[in-house]
């Protein structure tokens, strides 16, 4: 995940000079929506934090952090919001004569125009190429101001997914799956002898022998369980 958090409905504060967290000693590590995080003392409200009347308030359930004067919440769960160049795994949800509608796990469906499809398709006959329910590996080409996004299958490695298994994980846990420098993901591939592609939208494509796929799924679940336990303990 290139070391960034996936979900970002933005920096929600319009008041940068407003109140901030009380001293880190008193501040709760795990917070719930609505929790008062105290006065600022010149700190900024980051992701999942809202500044109101000189106070900071948590908007999400998660862990509070204070980095470089910005107080933010690292959420336990979050919705995927697409960004240009994201590699995502989507499902065909519908189509017109020349456009596919793709569920990429975001609040808004993406479109895949016929011209950006995997192969040449005839107007009105695009279901012969990709039909409803098919899974695809694609890349976000453009996100418009109204949150509509366009995906493309023109690019190296982008294809229809015809084999293997697609697993869903929370997008903000992708960093843990991939590991520093991709170490964890590389290890998973080597151990299971499977092809593993982690989409930025939290969908993971696992392809290989059945035993390898089962092994990879088990490891994925174990990793996620461990992550959740650590988060609940507050030491993730």
């Amino acid at each position, binding site marked *: 995940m290139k070391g960034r958090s996936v*979900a970002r*409905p*933005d920096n*929600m504060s319009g008041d940068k000079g407003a109140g901030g967290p009380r001293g880190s000693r008193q501040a709760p590590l*795990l917070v*719930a*929506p*609505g*929790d*008062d995080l105290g006065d600022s003392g010149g700190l900024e409200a980051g992701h*999942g934090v*809202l500044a109101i009347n000189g106070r900071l*308030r948590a*908007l*999400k*359930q*998660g862990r509070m952090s204070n980095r470089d004067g910005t107080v933010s919440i690292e*959420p*336990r*769960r*979050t*919705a995927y919001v697409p960004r240009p160049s994201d590699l995502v795994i989507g499902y065909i949800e519908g189509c017109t004569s020349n456009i596919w509608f793709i*569920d990429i796990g975001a*609040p*808004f*469906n993406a479109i895949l125009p016929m011209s950006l499809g995997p192969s040449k398709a005839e107007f009105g006959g695009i279901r012969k190429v990709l039909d409803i329910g098919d899974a695809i590996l694609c890349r976000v080409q453009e996100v418009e101001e*109204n*949150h509509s996004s366009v995906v493309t299958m023109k690019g190296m490695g982008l294809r229809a997914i015809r084999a293997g298994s697609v697993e869903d994980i929370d997008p903000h846990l992708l960093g843990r799956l991939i590991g520093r420098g991709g170490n964890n993901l590389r290890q998973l591939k080597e151990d299971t002898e499977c092809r593993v592609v982690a989409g930025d939208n939290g969908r993971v494509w696992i392809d290989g022998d059945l035993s390898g796929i089962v092994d990879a799924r088990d490891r994925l679940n174990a990793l996620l369980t461990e992550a959740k336990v650590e*988060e*609940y*303990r*507050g030491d993730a």
Partner: protein
Amino acid sequence: MGGYGDIQCIDENGIRLDGRTKDEVRPVHIETGVVPVADGSARMTWGLNDVIAAVYGPMEAHPRKIQRQDRAVLDVRYNMAPFSTTDRIRPGFNRRSREISKVTAEALESVVLTELYPRSKIRVEIEIICAEAGTRCAGITAASVALAHAGIPMSDMVVSVASGKVHDIVVCDLNKEEDNYGEADLPMGILPNSGELVFLQMDGDLSPDQFQEAWDYNMEATKVIHAEMVRALRGGDE
């Protein structure tokens, strides 16, 4: 409200049928993550009430006519299971469940930052497994925890609780007998951190003083329930 009944719901010492004092809340327990396939979920037991709430989304709103260009819509569905009461309930939507779904959506819309997800939909399913009294309050509260568990940005959580009048005595958090044989009830939705009110209904008549007393009971009960909500969201018994 059936008016005065034959049942004596509260004795001369102010002790109620279930042994509570008049300002006491039924035992509340909440756990999260009970529906693994949902984006967020919560189960709430409140007295004999047992409620599961599951949240899906935000997702593309269908049909398109329900989309709003500037915000997400909350699609709330409150349903009582046929086996949730002693008399079997006919499955499916009815007037009562439609009304409760509507007021629940409106209460939750006041805290969810819907403007972050224009044209999308957040689906909230509330299923009453076992009903005693105050299922709409339990539903709203459980849905609020499920939304927080799903990572939906909210300015606060909604705590809902009902107080009422039984034999001219105002009591907090009505149980089944008090709900059936009492004279009035006052369900409220309260934002625990700010004390703001987002939902209020009143069934029956309360004098201004009784209204104030019921209001105060609800405000106090909110603190107890909110503490349990936060405990559940922070990962249980810590």
